[in-house]
């Protein structure tokens, strides 16, 4: 009797576990090998980058004219660049800069996008019209061109101005996605019930709509992280991003604007190029994995 009760309790527990969409998604994600390998890789890159001050063998800023353009091996694991700085050290510190900017921009962009999108989607009518016309308007500016113009205006203001400029122009796609998801979610009865018992719009959005739009936001945020890292590295590469004294993956690539560096000194540009590409690739795989995990139609 008691054995059967136990069995039944176990089964019930299993069913209860199965019913949480977050648990299902987590299990699906854990079983996705590509996404898991990517996640492990990304976490490793993040940890190494943020431990840079402790594990980097050299000073990332000090110029050493005696040791310029040394090829890999010996004391300098990945060689040195044209200013005699250790490439491995720069790679670690550069990762810290590029990843920080990527994460902060992503957080800002997804916050602006969520606020604008959920308000427009929830209220509809003229609020929606005004906000979406504004979004369309910002969308009409060619992103890179305007970021470069703004970055050249605020050049003196440093990294945080860059972050704000990228975020101010990058939120439109997220706002559109969140809006359309909010609009379709709003039609459900539970939202009407929440409104009819007197929930304020703020509370309905925060407590009822956002948790259900969250999956979309998470997927969007992952993909945006990749986009933002590409934006920072591209801008730094062109000379309009992070100030040239600060190590960043884009700044490291800047040396490869000279043909003789591309031709003969591969150790200067291949490490940051690989770091950027593999990081973006792993973020994209994680994003795909999360999207797949939240998709009830997918079989895995």
């Amino acid at each position: 009797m008691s054995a059967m009760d136990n069995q039944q309790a176990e089964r019930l527990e299993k069913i209860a576990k199965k019913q949480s969409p977050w648990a299902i998604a987590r299990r699906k994600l854990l079983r996705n090998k590509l996404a898991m390998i990517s996640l492990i890789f990304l976490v490793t890159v993040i940890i190494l980058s943020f431990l840079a001050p402790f594990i980097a063998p050299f000073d990332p800023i000090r110029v050493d004219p005696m040791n310029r353009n040394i090829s890999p091996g010996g004391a300098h694991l990945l060689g040195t660049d044209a200013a005699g700085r250790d490439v491995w050290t720069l790679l670690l510190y550069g990762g810290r800069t590029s990843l920080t900017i990527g994460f902060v921009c992503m957080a800002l962009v997804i916050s602006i996008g969520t606020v604008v999108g959920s308000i427009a989607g929830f209220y509809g009518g003229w609020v929606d019209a005004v906000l979406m016309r504004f979004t369309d308007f910002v969308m009409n500016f060619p992103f890179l061109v305007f970021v470069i113009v703004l970055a050249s205006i605020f050049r003196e203001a440093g990294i945080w101005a860059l972050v704000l400029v990228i975020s101010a122009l990058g939120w439109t796609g997220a706002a559109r996605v969140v809006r359309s998801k909010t609009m379709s979610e709003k039609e459900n009865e539970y939202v009407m019930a929440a409104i009819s018992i007197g929930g304020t719009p703020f509370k309905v959005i925060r407590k009822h709509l956002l948790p259900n739009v969250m999956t979309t936001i998470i997927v969007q945020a992952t993909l945006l992280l990749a986009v933002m890292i590409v934006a920072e590295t591209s801008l730094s590469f062109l000379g309009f991003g992070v100030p040239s004294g600060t190590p960043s993956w884009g700044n490291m690539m800047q040396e490869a604007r000279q043909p003789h560096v591309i031709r003969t000194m591969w150790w200067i540009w291949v490490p940051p190029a690989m770091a950027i590409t593999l990081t973006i690739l792993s973020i994209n795989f994680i994003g795909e994995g999360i999207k797949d995990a939240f998709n009830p139609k997918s079989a895995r």
Partner: protein
Amino acid sequence: MLIYTLRRILIMIPILVMISIVVFTLALAMPGDALSGQIDPANSNPEYIAEMRDRLGLNDPVHVQYARWAGNVLQWDFGRSYNRKMPVTELIGQRLPNTILLSVMSMIITYILAFFMGRYAGRHPYTIGDYGIQGLNYLMLAVPSFVAAIFAIFFFSFQLGWFPATGSIGSGIQPGTMEFWLSKLKHTALPALVLGMLTTASYTQFLRNDIIESSQKDYVRTARAKGTAENAIYNKHILRNSIIPIVTLFGFDIASIIGGSVIIETVFGFPGIGELFISSITNRDSSVVLAITLMLSVATLVGNLIADLVYGLVDPRIRVE
């Protein structure tokens, strides 16, 4: 459709005006001003500078300056370049053909590659070939264009020597000859290939998924049941239906090519609009920056318009609203 098109074009006019105001404001805020391009640099007498400043109207209120600039722009006068000592329209006129050639070539390469890869992957899904193409797609989506450009220069220009690494024309070649055009195409091929990479990946993926989806549909089953050859089913029945949605993406290409060309032209030292934009910003040549920013914004706007119009053409539900 005609009314929808006219309405969409009319809506563009106020947006254009607002964009021009934003662009003008940014140009005012940029370091360096239009004055430096207009005066004799040898004469540093403050009285002369003040007089020129006044005569050129740089002391007028901002809205008066804007109205004058907008009036000139409508008459196709964008002022003079400070660094290159020539009218901005002439300067852009020299560079524009190169950028247009680059864009058109990149689109052609994109369409051809995406067509063949998408068709193959869609017809043979979940095979080694399909996984290979998918892997390539993921890579093309992940590599930032400047990284891809540098790898392309390293392998194709330096290691293999197939394509030149920089410029848009070989030295000492007379314009107008056959050799001139061949040299031009050879110089444009590599940047065009890199520029088209991102779009190639998304088109291939799009076509593949559409073909796979279509192959499950009833009309395909009917064709199979009637004994139509597999080749005919894929090439005639499915492909015709799967190509249409891709056409609608054309408008968005314009926006992605604009951003891409700024980076690609700079890496390859390709003398087009994007390279001119970057060098003008670096040299604080504000009249050129102003003209190019406005031009690229208008191009993006037109691209979005084309995307909407084509979409309305393909899907009539969009036109009602």
